[in-house]
């Protein structure tokens, strides 16, 4: 079979395009689901922070975190079914341990620092979550590092510039932004 240089060029472009699409699909296929789930958690949780009393806020976050955590575990298991490998299964376990340890460090930090108000407490948790998010990004999908940095910057701006509206800021820009980004990535792919 003889093919012309232009046909060869087309074939090489098709190969490159499929390789890029595969890399992108694998790295993004699960990330947008996590963004939507945790965006919804933030949206409801931070709205509760603004409108309800301390006791209700505590229960709301507890329920939301358990729900978000459970859905994330289910999503993680589902994702590993599409592309699987022995090393992938080992990485999945390490990632689960990483988040558990990060959660314990965050809890310890809150105990040591004893935040003076809800905003400070929320900001410490956000910073720990974003450290985890960026670490995952560096490991699995570099593109998501930028989302993590963006959300961190938005959170810090809200914390320092609009402290009285911090919860609403985080609900709509943080949570809402994550939901929007999640659906955007889903549609784009």
């Amino acid at each position, binding site marked *: 079979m003889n093919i*012309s240089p232009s046909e060869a060029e087309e074939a090489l472009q098709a190969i490159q395009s499929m390789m890029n699409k595969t890399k992108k*699909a694998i790295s993004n296929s699960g990330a947008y689901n996590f963004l939507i789930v945790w965006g919804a958690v933030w949206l409801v949780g931070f709205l509760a922070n603004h409108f309800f009393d301390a006791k209700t806020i505590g229960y709301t976050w507890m329920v939301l975190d358990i729900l978000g955590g459970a859905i994330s575990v289910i999503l993680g298991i589902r994702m590993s079914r599409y592309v*699987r*490998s022995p090393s992938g299964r080992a990485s999945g376990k390490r990632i689960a341990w990483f988040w558990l340890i990060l959660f314990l460090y965050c809890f310890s930090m809150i105990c040591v620092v004893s935040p003076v108000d809800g905003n400070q407490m929320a900001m410490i948790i956000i910073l720990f979550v974003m450290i985890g998010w960026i670490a995952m990004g560096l490991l699995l999908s570099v593109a998501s590092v930028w989302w993590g940095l963006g959300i961190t910057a938005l959170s810090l701006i809200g914390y320092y510039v609009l402290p009285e509206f911090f919860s609403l800021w985080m609900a709509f820009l943080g949570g809402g932004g994550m939901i929007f980004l999640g659906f955007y990535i889903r549609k784009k792919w």
Partner: protein
Amino acid sequence: MAKFNETIHQTVRLQIMAALVTLGAEEEVDFTYLRDLLEVTDGNLGAHLRKLEESGYIKINKEFVERKPRTFISASKEGRKIFNEHVAALESILKSK
């Protein structure tokens, strides 16, 4: 030496191989995931996979996961080698322009 491969060069099979060699050496991909990635029908993908399997370029692993039949596909060692040679052949044709 760069060898042009007619089996792999067919458009869909070229895309299948490109997707599979992008995965790690130990990784295998679910049939439905590959179908959605390539935007082809079940029948079309199945036919091309059979051809590639017969040539020894891919491995097909059928099993039951939670009582449901699932098919996983991966590039064989031979398939990766042949694909790389095919790409090298295409590049050499392009350079000769």
